[in-house]
């Protein structure tokens, strides 16, 4: 027999078991990470047809989100501005900038500027901007500090787990209504005792009760 299995053979089974175990762990970990929106989305920063810088327009020019995204508080969609909106200013300044050529062309012909879609929920998930911004949830919660971005980057996973986190503890994410569009403002919950109390009050007075069951987002 010995010729069949050398002494070393006795270690073999254990080694196999250990290697298999490790392999399985790695595989599972890998899949669970690489298949989540955390991986597939966060950090997505495509090149746009026009290198629009939110940082410049908000921080330097001091525009409010709603100047361009004018329907964010009315509609489910937060609309991307029409070229005309851009031209409101840019027919005075930088009127000849080559970078703005697509805008001018579009404003003239009416053909759309093909902005690349960054923040996108799956088609069976119905997210509504108006209800969130009107009830104390700031843009920054899902979009990150857009106001500081030169190139818009996907900051949050926007996965179901991500949504649920907030829907389960709304008080933690609420802002004072007037701070909603001020992306540098702090959450109430991060404003110490008073803030926490105010958040609680908001939840009670406004009857904030985010849906946690399917019907909230899936139709």
């Amino acid at each position, binding site marked *: 027999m010995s010729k069949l299995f050398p002494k070393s053979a006795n270690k073999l089974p254990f080694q196999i078991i250990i290697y298999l175990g490790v392999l399985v762990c790695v595989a599972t970990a890998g899949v669970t990470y690489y298949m989540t929106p955390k991986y*597939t989305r966060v950090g997505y920063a495509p*090149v746009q047809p026009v290198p629009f810088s939110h940082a410049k327009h908000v921080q330097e020019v001091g525009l409010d989100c709603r100047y361009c995204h004018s329907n964010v508080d*009315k509609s489910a969609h937060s609309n991307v501005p029409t070229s005309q909106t851009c031209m409101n200013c840019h027919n005075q300044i930088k009127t000849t900038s080559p970078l703005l050529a697509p805008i001018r062309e579009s404003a003239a012909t009416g053909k759309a*500027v093909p902005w690349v879609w960054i923040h*996108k929920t799956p088609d069976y998930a119905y997210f509504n901007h108006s209800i969130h911004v*009107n009830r104390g949830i700031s843009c920054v919660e899902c979009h990150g500090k857009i106001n500081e971005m030169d190139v818009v980057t996907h900051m949050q996973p926007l996965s179901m787990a991500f949504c649920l986190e907030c829907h389960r503890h709304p008080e933690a994410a609420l802002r004072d209504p007037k701070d909603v569009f001020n992306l540098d403002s702090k959450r109430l919950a991060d404003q110490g005792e008073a803030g926490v109390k105010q958040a609680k009050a908001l939840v009670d007075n406004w009857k904030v*009760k985010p849906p946690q069951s399917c019907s909230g987002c899936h139709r």
Partner: protein
Amino acid sequence: MKRIFEHPAPSERELNGPKYWRSLDELAATPGFVDQLKREFPQGAAELDGVDRRHFMKIMAASFALGGVGLAGCRRPELNILPFGKSVEGIIPGLPQYYATAMPLRKSAIPLLAETHQGRPTKLEGNPSYLPHGSASSLLAQASILDLYDPDRATAHTKGASVLTSAAVNELLANVGKNYAASQGAGLAFLADQSSSPTRARILKKLRRALPKAIWAEYEPVTDEPPLAAAQAAFGADVKPIYRFAQAKRILSLDADFFHAESGSLYYAREFAKGRRVTKATDPMNRLYVAESAFTLTGSMADHRLRLATSHMLALAAAIGGKALGTDILKPFTEGLEAFVSQKWVDECAQDLVDHKGESLVVAGAHLPPQVHAIAYAINALLGNIGKTIDFVAVEASSAATLSDLAGAVKTGAVKTLVILGGNPVYNAPVDLDWAKLQASVADVIRLGYAADETSALAGTNLASAHYLESWGDARTADGTVVPVQPMILPLFGGITQLEVLARIAGEANPDGYALVSETIAALAGGDAEKAMRRFLHDGLLEGSAFKKVPVSFDQRGAQVLFRDEPKKVEAFSLKNLEVRFVTDHKMDDGRFNNNGWLQECPDPITKISWDNAILVSPKLGKELGIAPQGSALQIARVEENDFSIGKENGRVYELTVGGRKIKGPLHIQPGLSNYTVVVPLGYGRVATGHVGKGAGFNAYPIRTVANQDVATGGTLVDTGTRLLLANTQEHWSMEGRDIVREANFDEYQKNPGYVDDIGTESHSPAIYGAQNTPTNDNKLSREDRAKLNATRAKDIPRGGSMYSTPKFDGQHQWGMSIDLNTCIGCNACVVACQAENNIPIVGKDQVMRGREMHWIRLDRYYSDGKAEGGAFGGEGNREIPEDPQVSLQPVACAQCELAPCEVVCPVNATVHDEEGLNTMAYNRCIGTRYCANNCPYKVRRFNFFDFNLRQLDSLYLGQLGPKGMPELVKMVKNPEVTVRMRGVMEKCTYCVQRIQNGKIQHKVAMAQAGRPGDVVVPDGTIKTACQQVCPVEAIEFGNIDDPTSKVSRAKALEQDYSLLGYLNIRPRTTYLGKLRNPNPKMPDYQALPLSRVEYNSKNHPPSDHGHGAHGHDSHAPAAPKTEKKHSVIDAGKTFGGLS
């Protein structure tokens, strides 16, 4: 970890939007309403492209977006956002907009509100500002939007083989006018369908002044308005009747299907329901007598229904008239009637009418001869109903020539150019005119048609017609109110309208629709034209434009003119001499909706056959034809006369011969028909039609002559020996004596409004809310308290002493629905409204035959004849299909059970409850075990057996090999607020959850912006489900049952409120109001109990014990568990008795 991605520039198509989209400059030619259009047709397609891709993604969603597998490691497919180029005031991407318009049909239009998403109409609702209809609309109106996106519609103007540009068309039309100007129109003829459009009338006048010699003929294959001749004779005036059913306590219908076939049916159904609905024992309830040959929805509603050949209606009218008016002059017309109607029936019916002077009403079917109408008018006049239950309004007598006249002219060769506007004469003209040949004989035929059809095949020039949702126009409702026809979208294929065609021929200065209409409106309204027009479009109707009421007095001498010729003796029909009745099909109408998938798949409300029509014959005639049930006498195993082999109706194909002309069609044994009347629905068997309509049904027109367009005699039936499978959605017609539709007679209800609680297993099983909370105890409370009780129960889900603490429904609303079986007329409008709202696919005849139709709401139709045999194990049931049944109709959709059996069995939590009591369905979580559907006692869950939204219906079984994807055009009808489901997932009604969510959100947003963020509860009535909104009789109430004052709470608090299969303790949120019948005890066919009730009693309480089940039952309604126990044991004993 920041990654930069270079994406390829998007394709041209992406940038320009779908090819159907037309850019603004094409309209530059038509100034005056550019801003008007701006509002509706934003240039650059907005996010429409995005939206369509959304749908595509929705369809694919389940397979990729969530799959993980599809995604592992790599990023989502790169998409673009395409914002408007120029700002468009009024459009908010993501919010639908509503515009007023109307669907014209023959001489009456239905005012509508069209829901558009970025200029893409997706859904139609009734225009609430037109009060006679409320927000209701009809089955056909709901489905008509699908025609807009019909891939088979005409996409170009053609002359012979060549395609005409719109410029060429304009020129061509202009030339017609010019060429015939000299001859004053001699040699020019028009053939149009009926229209109520004031503008068309206006242009027509002009045209005739210009071309006096031109022939203007109108033709409609079916009539839906009473013959003017009758009114002229009876009242010496051009008037038509408008019935006020709400005021009528006693109604006699002579072969009149005023729920569907008569013009104004929507209004009539609504009014009838008002007189039918009872909310308390002291309410009055109308009584409906119907004499008819076919079996119509009106007949199914009747308290006394007389099966009588249409040819005998004159005799019946004469008999009843004679009795009611106390005169003998009509006697000769009744000769021989006694063989078909018992004198008592006539006398008592007439007496009942007489006893209700001023609140009775006699209605005669539009297809009946003037004499019958004259008699009806006479009765109404002399019973003082005029001005109370019936009004007469002035109408213009049509000066148009008939099709026969035109045919005559064509024969003589007098017609050189024939302009055919709409219609489809080659398909539906009376066969003896031989129209096809005549039309072919005309040198130059110009046809304006919506799709390539039989008529266009024989026309040299074919102009593509615009859909009414693409057209400027106007129309009148049945009562004459002028309503706008307003475009929601530019003509997708450059179609033009009748108005434009006529205007161009007439050489109008500004021949475009908007100008023409505004001119008319300006004239009608007076004052500032622009303002008037804007108001008109905003309201969706022209105030006070309805026909004027005119006082009329019955002129007997005048009426006698109609009766001059010798009265015919009532002729007896037989197997050798059948009466053939042609009826307007419930869905195809006269055939114009033939290529509409939603309508084709919607089952006929009575026969339940979809995708086909059938030759309907009475069971008696069936027997005489030798069709008798084979096999076991047991109900459960019996082979139906309508032979259901393995679940598919296996129709025998017969040949129907009338006057030497023959048609072939499958036979369907239909209870409730007059014994020797054969009913053939029109509108099927089109040869030149689209993919959908092709091969559906048989064509009945080839046996229809000028002389007998509505009814023919001397028909015979011969078996061809062949069979045709029919897609019948309801194999089983008997309620099996079960407590499904709970009925009572009006008098029983008055004694015991809570009668529903004495029926069914609950009535003697332990009360589901605990011993003290029996329905009987609940009924002791006041309605308000009961509503409050329901509210608390909805939230706390009491368990009647269960040891478990169970989750409470702590939502801010608790949704519930109440369906009134007493007013539901089973018109099927809800079925299609739901289909339109919820992106429900059609599956095709083959799949329907397999039982895979996808309708979320269906109408169950049961017959009962009271002859079900009882006994243990249910006994033998009804042995034969009844000849003269009572019908019970019941809409069934997901009832959102509080203790939903479907949820418990789903292994992956794909269907769970939300805190507001909705039984939600997360399509993207569903893996399709179908366990939920098995465990649903109502069988309302629908499974996507194939990719119905992604595959062609004819290649479903090819799987991946088959062609993939839907035409963009078809996708455009989809509602962006609802996920399009892929194969392998379960779907069902969720009370239009998208409407609920949007309603809540919009309310909260409004309140937050109004500074009242705490006000989150949506006011009652703001959220309506699609089925509720469309319902003509307002049988469906929906709302928040947490609010005891909401309409639905009040409906549910009624004593006759019951849960279907309540004993299962699943606590459906949708409950039903019991059905009532109001028979006349003096009538010979009086039934002391509704027949379904008789069957229920004979099955559950066989006669062996306490005489009449119902009453015996009331005596010991359960009070406490103890007695219940005893009770149920007794019952078991009884059932045993029944067995032996």
